[in-house]
């Protein structure tokens, strides 16, 4: 439990807490002879209590200003579930709908928006899985490491539903996605879930390196191919095979040759996309120990809150104050 202050100098203000112990700040009334008044223990203890409360309130305020916090911490967590890296295409073609019409950045029926929506549903259903997120277009973007914090993953995926830019460059994305697994002991089934609407030619050396990584990390690959209805199917060889015009077919072939479990789902409409995602959802799990970082916790609110409680007590008695002998 590590504890620190954002503004330690403000602790000097705590010295002011001495003042209410000596000064009440109340309007003083003159009474001719105190010796004649009977002793009253209740008044005595209320007086002490109020002085103490006022001092405490000042102390808590000083503490609040000093902003105490618990430092960020690493906690060990054990989770069960598949480790899924979502590798999501953010190229400009994702802004289109399934018929190939450009819908603009904010359209809800664009492929990226739909994919985001369905992925969120998928994430919501898989409570025990770990997710990582990599977005890619021309270059990959590291979004989230493997985590069970579904709230963070959800938000990140939803954020991807916006407008995409650039071309589809799949190889660096795959490399980064696999990077999440490399050097880690195998503790659960590993999946790279590639969501894209196209592919690009891959240099043979890079293809070889990726193949090696897939095999080393024992990672399964699922490809949800958001196919344009006019585009070529993955399973049918195109009429004039060429890696520049129909890279999807060649990519499909390459994935088959990886030597790891691979499955492609062609989704050329919303319903097919839903089905494709439903299929991915049947994977066995093994427990995994991992470390999660907890952000630092601000405790100043607690201080202000307790000071407020003290104040309520003080205010109650202030409202009862006799300001003048009302005779």
């Amino acid at each position, binding site marked *: 439990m590590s504890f620190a202050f954002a503004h330690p100098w403000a602790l000097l203000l705590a010295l002011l807490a001495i003042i209410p112990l000596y000064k*009440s700040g109340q309007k003083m009334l003159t009474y001719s002879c105190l010796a*004649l*008044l009977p002793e*009253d223990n209740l008044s005595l203890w209320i007086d002490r209590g109020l002085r103490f409360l006022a001092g405490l309130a000042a102390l808590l305020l000083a503490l609040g200003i000093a902003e105490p916090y618990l430092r960020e911490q690493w906690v060990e967590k054990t989770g069960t579930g598949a480790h899924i890296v979502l590798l999501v295409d953010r190229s400009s073609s994702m802004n289109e709908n399934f018929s190939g019409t450009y819908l603009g950045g904010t359209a809800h029926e664009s492929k990226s928006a739909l994919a985001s929506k369905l992925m969120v549903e998928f994430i919501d259903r898989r409570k025990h899985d770990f997710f990582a997120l990599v977005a890619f277009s021309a270059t990959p973007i590291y979004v989230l490491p493997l985590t069970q914090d579904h709230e963070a993953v959800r938000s990140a995926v939803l954020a991807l539903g916006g407008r995409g830019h650039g071309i589809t460059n799949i190889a660096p994305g795959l490399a980064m996605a696999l990077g999440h697994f490399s050097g880690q002991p195998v503790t659960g089934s590993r999946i790279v879930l590639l969501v894209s609407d196209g592919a690009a030619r891959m240099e043979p050396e890079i293809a070889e390196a990726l193949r090696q990584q897939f095999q080393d990390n024992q990672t399964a690959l699922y490809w949800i191919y958001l196919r344009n209805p006019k585009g070529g199917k993955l399973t049918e060889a195109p009429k004039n095979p060429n890696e520049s015009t129909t890279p999807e077919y060649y990519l499909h072939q390459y994935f088959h040759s990886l030597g790891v479990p691979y499955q492609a789902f062609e989704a050329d409409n919303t319903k097919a996309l839903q089905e494709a995602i439903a299929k991915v959802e049947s994977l066995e799990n093994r427990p995994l120990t991992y470390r999660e970082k907890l952000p630092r916790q601000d405790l100043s609110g607690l201080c202000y809150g307790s000071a407020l409680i003290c104040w309520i007590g003080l205010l109650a008695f202030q409202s009862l104050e006799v300001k003048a002998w009302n005779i």
Partner: protein
Amino acid sequence: MTFEEFHYHIPWRALGSHPGHHTGVQSGGGFEFQGLVPFTSQPDPRYLDIRAMIADPMQQLMVKSFRQRATIPVYLLADLSASMGFVGKAAKTGLLAELATAVAWSAWRTGDPFGLYACDSQIRLDLSLPLRLYKGMVSGLSERLRAFHPKSNNALGLLEAATLLGRQRSLVFLVSDFHFPLSQMEELFNSLVRHDVVPVVLWDSGEYENLPRFGWAEVQDPETGQRRRLFLRPGLLQRIRERFAERKEELTQICVRHGREPFFLVDRFDPDAMTRYFYQ
């Protein structure tokens, strides 16, 4: 101009030789029969008593002798310690000024000389009057008394003033709230033992009767500077009232032991009540 006036009456004989209102010890012109004396010792044929002469076997000439009525000095000793600065239903200094005016005026009407000693830790000569025949209160003094802000933390000047009252027995109005220890009171009465002391207890109902029913008050004693915070509530008010009733009893006892019951002057001065006090 009307003044509040009361009548006072003393149950003892005035020692003074000045003709006045009160029964005296000197023989002279008057209506109070003192006795029969031989004509030779008081050769005034107007007072020859034929009946007494016939009854006298020696057939001496006898005259009736009468006692002359006399004046007494009337003093007012005022406590001006800080506790007299209390302002409740009325300002205590205001009540004091009112009472002093009434005493001065009544003394004049009775034909007695009046003297005033206002005392805090010493005698305040600026607020005092030497013993003279004044026609009522000296102008302006009443206002000055009323406007005075008592600050001293004791009333020891009263003891000093007691030594200045002279040897002749006088009527002394001792005006104070008597918020000082009973031992000090005893000492004061002892130093005034020669005189007829009328203790006037100046209290305010705001001190014990009319306190706020409910509230949180911080109070300070102007004499000791001591502070206390009080949670005023009906139970505590009841105890304060009981404490004052007890105090009243204590004061009455100690005053009765030294001659007279105290006159309690609370909130307002009623001259008729003062008259009743003397004649009851």
